């Protein structure tokens, strides 16, 4: 028996995939190619003409200490978001997995933050940490902390990390919970009889079996911290104070649309593109090898 669906019309399959192809071409390939073209051009001050400058834009970038600083900020930011986000959501998932009563309720609440738009999440945490009326800011000031994340770079980093992590916890939680639930209960019981306490079981049985999920989430979280946190940063700190929270993506936007340096901005886009391609390759290579233990 032929189980596959067979299209007898030669053009129908193409017609069916056309919308997806069109979207990909218009919103991904075309802008990407434009970025590559722009990255080797320099525009005049009025945006009227542009001329070819080779790799000058890239060379200028790596001589720009703000750009190098942005790398450091991004590295710190994405590490914090990934490590804190994954640790907290794993803790929540392990706890939720043990709960029997009202488990669905907890799970539902834990999933909600994922539905919040990044800009809204940013605004929300902006209120919470707003120097003066913000509830957490108020408590911190009561405790004698000189709190103003609009002025203090470290505090600003703290706030954007909190907001970005909070938004991603739901996603991580879902994957961790699914991963935990796919570990057969009898494995845990066998380990318990073998003599392993809960902590030991976690490190020697649960975590190794969860490692494909963990690795997948590390990649996803790094990509998230790199690219999807623009809204959070824009609504909270606008990359400041003094570029303390200016991650690479934010700088692309700022240099291109605020500073009107399209060439430099495009060169940064091309570098980001290379990073994301690298991450994707690692993810596929490693996960395909590691997912079947």
């Amino acid at each position: 028996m032929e189980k596959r669906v067979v299209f007898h019309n030669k053009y129908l399959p193409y017609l069916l995939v056309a919308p997806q192809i069109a979207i990909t071409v218009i919103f991904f390939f075309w802008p990407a190619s434009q970025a590559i073209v722009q990255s080797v051009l320099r525009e005049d001050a009025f945006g009227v003409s542009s001329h070819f400058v080779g790799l000058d834009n890239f060379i200028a970038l790596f001589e720009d200490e703000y750009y190098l600083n942005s790398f450091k900020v991004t590295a710190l930011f994405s590490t914090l978001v990934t490590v804190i986000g994954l640790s907290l959501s794993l803790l929540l998932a392990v706890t939720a997995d043990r709960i029997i009563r009202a488990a669905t309720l907890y799970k539902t609440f834990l999933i909600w933050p994922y539905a919040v738009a990044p800009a809204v999440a940013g605004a929300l945490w902006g209120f919470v940490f707003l120097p003066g009326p913000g509830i957490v800011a108020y408590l911190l000031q009561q405790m004698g902390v000189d709190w103003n994340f609009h002025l203090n770079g470290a505090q600003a980093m703290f706030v954007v990390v909190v907001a970005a992590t909070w938004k991603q916890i739901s996603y991580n939680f879902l994957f961790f919970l699914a991963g935990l639930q796919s570990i057969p209960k009898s494995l845990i019981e066998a380990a318990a009889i073998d003599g392993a306490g809960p902590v030991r079981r976690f490190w020697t049985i649960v975590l190794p079996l969860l490692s494909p999920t963990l690795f997948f989430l590390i990649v996803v979280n790094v990509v998230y911290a790199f690219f999807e946190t623009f809204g959070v940063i824009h609504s909270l700190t606008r990359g400041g104070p003094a570029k303390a929270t200016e991650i690479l993506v934010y700088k692309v936007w700022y240099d291109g649309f605020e500073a009107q340096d399209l060439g430099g901005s495009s060169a940064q886009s091309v570098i980001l593109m290379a990073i994301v391609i690298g991450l994707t390759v690692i993810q596929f290579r490693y996960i395909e090898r590691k997912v079947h233990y």
Partner: protein
Amino acid sequence: MAKVTLKGVKKSYGQVKAIHGVDMEIQDGEFIVIVGPSGCGKSTLLRMIAGLEAITEGTISIGDRVVNDIEPRDRDIAMVFQNYALYPHMSVYENMSYGLRIRGMSKSDIEKRVQRAAEILQLQPYLQRKPRELSGGQRQRVAMGRAIVREPSVFLFDEPLSNLDAKLRVQMRLEIKRLHQQLGVTSIYVTHDQVEAMTLADRLVVMNLGRADQIGAPHEVYARPATTYVGGFIGSPAMNFLSCRVENGSGGPRAVLSDGTALALPTAWSVPPGEYTLGIRPEHLRTARPGETPHLMLEVDVAEELGADTLLHGKIAGEELVARVPSYAGYHDHSKPGLITDITLAHLFDKESGLRIAV
């Protein structure tokens, strides 16, 4: 090695009672099989002994120690699971040594024990493999190896053979039996397969709806089932049950079936007259030879040819009955043979409670 004692053990999940009170004394080195259909509570009972389920009421002791509040790891037991429960990310060697490593045993001692267990189970060539690279039977052996290396006082088996194909099951059954003879460790084995139960057990526990209907040696359980349930569960094909009224006539007691057929009971039986259930095993019925007066007349619907034997399915006094007769007798569908039974091998049960009547 140790004996295991269960005293009034009960288990409830909220309002639902799963185990209604089981008392049992398992001797040191004994092989006990708990048998029953799914949902009878046999696995729950085993998991309570393992410490994987809390005990609602009663006590379980291993050796001289009540273990109700003792963690599974401190009960000195090892368990073989139905799905093997091997750690998929560890090699066979690591799987078997996991418990020993946790207990902080020295590397050389671990090596010795694992090698010895691997030798017993013929696993030496596979020690460095991962479980996914093994066949079902090999995985099963690794699971047993993991239990053996621990040298526990009690082995617990939770339907360990039910994931294997029929041929392998027979082979592994024999291996488990040999292993027990070799190691002599107290073993508690749960299964729903009565052949496994009969062949492996020193003593059998037949569970029914959360109760232990009968505890006894396989032959005793077969020859003197304590309830109609046990009679029907142990033995294949199942025991025939006929409703009857026992009357004490001049020629001694007799059982009268609903269609008036009367079967003379052994004169030695002293049974008060009344309504009973008569149990006759299919293998205790034979067809009447020429000149013999048959005890029962069977109307055969279907004759199932098994090779050596033929199963005659039919009705007597409106009740289903199966007789197992030699194939050479040549009976076929819709024949009407007369049957002879050795009434001394028959069983009498109370009609209401299903309990065996001592005669």
